[in-house]
Structure formats: C-alpha cells, structure tokens
C-alpha cells in the first residue's frame, strides 16, 4: 500500500503545469503567484511535501482541493454514492447474467443455447461500456419515459427513482464484465464436467441437477472468482466513462475534472481512494476464494 501511495504522489507531481498559474490565470502578478505557492506548500522541496502528505494521510487527512478549498475526502464522499451504486449494480447484473448462462452454455455445449449465449458474451467483450451506454440511451432512454438518461437520483429520494436512474449505466458497466465472466464460467464448467468426481457423483445415483449444482458449481467457481477479481478493473474503467455518458456527477467525473484543472490533492486523493477500494475488493475476492476452495485453508493439496 505504501508503494501505491508513493507512486501516486510522485506520479501526480510529475504532471506538467503549475496549479497556481492555472488558478490565477496566465498574466497573473508574480508576487501573487509566489504568495499562492507558499500558501499551497508548493514552494517546498518535493521530499518535504511528500513526507508532510504522508503524515497527514496517516491521520486520515487527504488534504484540501487547491481549487475549492474543500477537504478531498469530503468532495469524494459527496460523489461516491452514484459511483458505488452503479458499480455494485453493474456487478450484480454481470453475475446474474454470467453464472447461469455460463453453466447453461457448458451443459448444452454445441447446441443452440450455447451458440446464443457465447455470441451475446462475445458482443459483451467487444464493446466499450460507454458505447453500450450511448446505445442504451438511444434505444431505451429515448423510448421509455420512466427511465431517465441523464443524472442521478440519490437513494433517499426513493428506491425506485434511484434504481431507474442507475439501471442503464449499471447495465452498460455490467455487460462487458458479464461477458468476460460468462466465458470463464463456461470454460471452467466444461473442465469440471470432465472431472472424475463428477462421474463418481453420477455413479452414486444423484440426479443430473444435483451432480451439476452440488458437485460441480463450487469447483467451477474457483477459477472464476480469481479472474472476477482481476477484471474488476473493467468495471472501474467502465464506470468512469459511463458517468460521463449519463451526465452523472460521480468519482469518475471528479477525477477527469481534477486532472484538467491540475488539482493535485484532489487527483492524489481520488487515485488513492480508488486504489484503496481496489485493493480492498481484491482482499474480499481472496477471502471468497479461500471460502470456496478448502484446499487453500489448510495449505495442503497439490
């Protein structure tokens, strides 16, 4: 984590451009510029800035936006709602599509169900999320009045409006992720179907559904869970772009905006928080992995 923090700090500082000049305009008074730099701490040597920043981080202080003066954490908290909502719903949609169709596809290999699902998954992995968003706006948003194509309604204004405001972006984010997961689920299940223990289960006289879901499912999910963690980045990348498409003020828009304005603390804070959430998500995935794979827990096995 320290590594991430350090990389983020120096990477962000390497961005060319002087925020003081940006704030005051190109023809600002040099004295005012110096004063502002002093105020922002930009005149100190880089390593001093680094350690100051680090010390504040440890106390939970991510600094203030150069531009608005608001605390970084506060600005992030304001816009985190829509981003989290979209990402979470997107993942739910992806899993709801991917797991059943992946299983269906593997069981009905080379039959019509397989061809239909793999084709849809193929489109899923071949379209950027923002493009799916645009198509959804054109096809559904324009024709279905009850689903808005712009903006976000917080959940405390009612679950239904909230849900309607994020269903399209969530689908746009979830579809590519779902396509990836579905393909993994399929090929993982295909391998499991050939395992000896599946034959054993059938030789015990279990029904084919029990063989599939009691003996097969958990084994098939093991590699899928790992890869699902790796591909969380797809969800993240999707959310950033999709927020722009649907005009939703989320973390993605905040990040893009702060880069354009060279708002260092805000960039640093945002990147850090996203990385942190990402690391956290991967820890959750690891936990899930040990939960469904007993071979890990005891360090034995192959």
């Amino acid at each position, binding site marked *: 984590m320290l590594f991430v923090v350090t990389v983020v700090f120096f990477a962000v500082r390497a961005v060319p451009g002087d925020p003081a000049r940006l704030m005051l305009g190109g023809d600002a008074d040099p004295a005012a510029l110096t004063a502002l730099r002093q105020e922002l701490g930009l005149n100190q040597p880089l390593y001093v800035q680094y350690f100051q920043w680090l010390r504040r981080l440890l106390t939970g202080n991510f600094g203030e936006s150069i531009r608005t003066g608001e605390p970084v954490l506060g600005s992030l908290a304001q816009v985190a709602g829509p981003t989290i909502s979209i990402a979470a719903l997107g993942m739910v949609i992806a899993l709801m599509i991917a797991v059943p169709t992946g299983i269906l596809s593997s069981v009905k290999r080379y039959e019509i169900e397989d061809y239909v699902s793999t084709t849809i998954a193929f489109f899923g992995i*071949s379209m950027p999320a923002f493009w799916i968003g645009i198509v959804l706006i054109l096809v559904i948003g324009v024709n279905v009045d009850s689903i808005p194509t712009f903006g976000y309604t917080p959940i405390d204004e009612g679950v239904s409006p909230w849900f309607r405001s994020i269903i399209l972006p969530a689908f746009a984010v979830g579809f590519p992720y779902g396509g990836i997961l579905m393909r993994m689920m399929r090929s993982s299940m295909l391998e499991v179907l050939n395992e000896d223990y599946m034959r054993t289960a059938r030789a015990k006289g279990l029904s084919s559904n029990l063989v599939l879901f009691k003996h097969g499912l958990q084994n098939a999910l093991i*590699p899928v869970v790992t890869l699902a963690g790796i591909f969380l980045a797809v969800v993240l990348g999707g959310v950033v772009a999709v927020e722009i498409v649907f005009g939703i003020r989320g973390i993605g828009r905040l990040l893009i905006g702060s880069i354009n304005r060279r708002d260092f603390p805000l960039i640093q804070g945002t990147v850090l928080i996203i990385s942190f959430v990402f690391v956290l998500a991967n820890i959750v995935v690891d936990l899930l992995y040990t939960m469904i794979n007993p071979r890990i827990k005891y360090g034995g096995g192959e």
Partner: protein
Amino acid sequence: MSSRFDGDGGRVFGIRTDLIEQFIGTVNRDLKAKVGVVIVTLFVIAAVFAPELAPYDPMAQDFAPLQAPALSSETPLGTDSFGRDLLSRLMYGARISLGVGLGAVLFGAIIGVLLGLVAGFYGGWIDDLLMRSVDVMWAFPWLLIAIMLVAIFGQGVWNVVIAVGFAYIDDFARITRGEVLSIREEEYILAAESVGLGDLEVVFEEVFPNTVAPIIVQFTVLVARAMLAEATLSFLGLGVKPSTPTWGALLGQGRDFITQAWWISIIPGVLIMITVLGINLFGDALRDAFDVREVDSE
C-alpha cells in the same frame, strides 16, 4: 501429423510451422474463425492504406457540417460538426486504433515477456522480486495507470501507447513465467544445459519458442482490449490529441450532437465493436488452434 514438425524442424520467425498449419486448419473448419480473419484483414487494409484509400484529407473542413450519410453524396458516411468527411476520418482513425493497439501490447509484451523469462528461468530472489512488483501493478486498475501516465506525459500517440501498454506488462510476465516454469522441468532443457549451452542460449533457443503459442493468443486478446482502452481514453479526452481522428474521440465528439446527427457517434461505435469482435474471434481461433487453456486455475 504434427510429429513431422517436432524438434527443430520448420520455424518461421521462431514460430513452429505446425502452429501455423494448425491455425489454417482451424480457420478452414470454423465459421467464426473465418469471420474473424476477414474482419481483421479488412481492418488492417483500411488502416495501412488509409492515405491511399481515404477520399479526402481527414482534417480538411471541406463540406457543410453535419451532413447525414447517403450513398449517393460525396460524403457517403456524412460529415462532422466541422464539415469534415467522416469516412476519411474513420479510415485514419483505424490507423490510430491499430497503431495504438499493436504498439501498446507490443510494449507490454516486450517488457513483460523479458521479465517473465528472467523470473521463470532464474527463480529464487530474482523471481520473488520481479513477480512481487508485478503483483503490485495488478492491484492497480489499468485505467488509473493510463490516466495518470497521460496526465504526466501529456497527450500524444506514444504516451497513449505506453499508458495503455503499461497495464499489460503483468499479463505477459505472468504467462511467460508460468510457461517457463513448466517447460523448465522438461527434460530437453536439462539436455540443452548438459551439452553446455549457456543460460541466455537456453532461454532463446529452447524456452522462448515453446512459450510462443500462449503468448500469441494473449497478444491477440490484449490487442482487442487495448483498442477498447484507447477508445475509452480518447472518449474521455485523455487520448491522442483531440483534433486527431480516433474512433473513441469521434464517438465522444459526436455525443454532443447525438440528437441532430446520430451517425457521428454510432458509426465509430459500430466500427469499434465490429473490429474488436473480429480480433476476439481471431484470438479464439488461435486459442483453439494452439490448444491454449482459457481458465487457469492458479
């Protein structure tokens, strides 16, 4: 059949010719593979010969803005808000897409494969150190890497190439290392060592050619993903310079006119989709031909 090409026989650019034969076999058998090959070929032709094939200068504001596509008109795919011919811009856009896609993955592949070869071949603390660093990258979402790198180095083709490709180093490093580790155990490497080939010779003569199949497959899949990444970056305004015609940027600019001129957004979007689809089909055909597993339980 394949035994004819075992061992040292028949290699083209270090790739065993039986792999090429297997691929041709797959394409002959599989309709999806055929579609993939056709799409990829058309796309590459459009990209490479854009200057010859494009009817107009992509930057010239020659026409009335926001003309709708019509086959009969001078601008069959319409014009953008500045009156530039969309067809020409799209053809030049293919160049950028292909260039960035290939370039980014090549960047990731060269560094990643080298890291993987070294880590897998030497093992020990070198392996630990390299793979730990790669693991850290894994905890870093690619879009952030790309956004940060573009923010650092500014916009421009090479910066986007590096920004996008950076995220793929770990993929290649991991695959290469895994393959090297499994091949290392095989006896012909021991045999090569026992006849006194040096480390480097063993790596390049024996190990590398045998890791080629999974790497080619991964390469293809990542080219598709790199193109999506480039499109996303361009769409966010963080890609190649805004005036450059890339598919992602065209799509992003068209979004403002989506109600008056749907084609500016839709056509590049469809093109991205078809091309990426084609490359993915191509990659799947390669995967089938080379018999590379998609899911690795490790």
